[in-house]
């Protein structure tokens, strides 16, 4: 029992640290990449190649003056960013990071928890995440913040539906399992799910952009219309939490996309490579190589998120709603219908 608790505690802390570290260095990578795209140098003063820049930014956030508006509800004002950060970090708990590892003769899985409703758990946490923005925006007692919060919530609700239906099609192709580990394991020998679900992947990707409030869907904080959107009144580390949670969300949604559609820690000819290296199942090198492969996929997705942000202009609000309800939702329903028909004729579904 004690070893179990220690092992779970180590994994929890490791995933927490990993999320924070990736989010911190995503901020630097975002600035470097935008500099590259705009033919600038980017931050290069703090440390070699600007590698200490995230630490400097974080330290600055902590030492800034903290302002809580007099007229606002103090408890809810503080609850908003905390809740947003909490839900962002919670989603990491169902993601399988690599294959099971033997440590001191016992097999351990590198995942916080493998619940049999993992996919639904993700959706549950994501749907709670919107409360952080709404409560924060409302408690600011500022019209711009309220408008930003309302935009965020309506946008997230609209895109959740298309996203959910795209995932239902994915679950049907992977044999009706809702556990993330099983979905990843099923892409072990064969090909990645994206080959069977190309349309589903595109819908999921667009919805993930909208759910994480990234450009071109960053209307909740669109500075040209709403000053700063839902975090207009926030300062110091509370603003930092809002901004930081966005990067964690981006990391986790990249991880989920890589696990759902690109095989997670599997990669082509993985088994051949392991055989050639003479590695047995449960070896720590398999875990490390698999984790490296998974992380490469995640890094590519994060870079694509940033590439899109620095390339495309922002949508208008009615365009955003049209895209969600008139194009993505019917497309995802079509995708679901095609998937069910194909699986039925392949004899995988029984009525």
């Amino acid at each position, binding site marked *: 029992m004690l070893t179990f608790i220690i092992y779970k505690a180590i994994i929890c802390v490791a995933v927490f640290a990993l999320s924070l570290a990736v989010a911190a260095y995503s901020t630097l990578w975002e600035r470097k990449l935008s500099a590259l795209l705009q033919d600038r140098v980017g931050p290069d003063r703090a440390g070699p190649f600007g590698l200490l820049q995230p630490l400097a930014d974080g330290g600055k956030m902590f030492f800034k003056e903290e302002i809580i508006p007099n007229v606002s509800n103090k408890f*809810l004002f503080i609850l908003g960013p905390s809740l947003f950060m909490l839900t962002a970090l919670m989603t990491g708990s169902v993601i399988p990071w690599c294959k099971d590892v033997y440590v001191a003769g016992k097999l351990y899985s590198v995942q916080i928890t493998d*619940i*049999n*409703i993992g996919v*639904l*758990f993700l*959706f*549950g946490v*994501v*749907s*709670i995440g*919107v*409360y952080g923005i*709404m*409560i924060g925006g*409302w408690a600011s007692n500022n019209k711009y913040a*309220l408008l930003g*919060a*309302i935009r965020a*919530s*309506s946008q997230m*609700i609209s895109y*959740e539906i298309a996203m959910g239906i795209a995932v239902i099609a994915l679950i049907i192709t992977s044999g*009706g399992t*809702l556990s993330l580990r099983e979905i990843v394991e099923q892409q072990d020998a064969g090909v990645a799910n994206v080959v069977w679900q190309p349309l589903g992947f595109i819908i999921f990707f667009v919805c993930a952009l909208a759910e994480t409030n990234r450009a071109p869907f960053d209307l909740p904080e669109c500075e040209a219309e709403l000053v700063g959107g839902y975090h207009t009144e926030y300062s110091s580390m509370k603003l930092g939490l809002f901004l930081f949670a966005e990067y964690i969300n981006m990391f986790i949604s990249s991880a989920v996309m890589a696990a759902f559609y690109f095989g997670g820690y599997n990669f082509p000819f993985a088994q051949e490579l392991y055989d050639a290296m003479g590695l047995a199942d449960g070896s720590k090198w398999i875990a490390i190589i698999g984790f490296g492969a998974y992380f490469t996929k995640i890094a590519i997705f994060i870079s694509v998120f940033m590439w899109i942000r620095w390339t495309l202009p922002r949508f208008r609000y009615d365009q955003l709603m049209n895209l969600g309800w008139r194009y993505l939702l019917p497309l995802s329903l079509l995708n679901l219908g095609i998937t069910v028909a194909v699986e039925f004729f392949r004899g995988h579904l029984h009525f």
Partner: protein
Amino acid sequence: MLGYTITQWLFGILSFLSIMFGLMVVFSRNPVNSVLYLVMTFFCIAGHYLLLNSQFLAIVHIVVYAGAIMVLFLFVIMLMDLNQDNEPQKTWLTKIIAGIAGGLMLFVLVGSLKGSEQLGIAQNGSSQIGTVKNLGKVLFSEFLFPFEIASILLLAALVGSIMIGKKEIK
């Protein structure tokens, strides 16, 4: 611990919390706070579902009620900008009528629960009773007819709301 199992402790704590948050919904002055307390109540009820071994219902309860319906509630209340100054004062007659109606509702609920046998799902059923697969099988075989009726009801509500929402009907 005091002769109770851990399940009974959890049940007691969850029940206390859900009743407490339920009362807070009614008693809090600010409608936004009411909605937030209602969200907390839904979380406690999801905990009860978990104790009854139905993980699927628990998570769907959170996704649908806490994650979608209550967000829309909050949305509307935030837009309406309710506060105590412009809230209409209700007369004593309305309050008495509301009290009697609520009391009757409670009476009916207590009466119906008193006659029914104890739900022994958590004790007797297997831990697999609430998985998606089992629920789906039961829903699409044994309870197919009520399920379809409920879906038609929802469809009617959907069409109705679109009709109300449309500016002009062609």
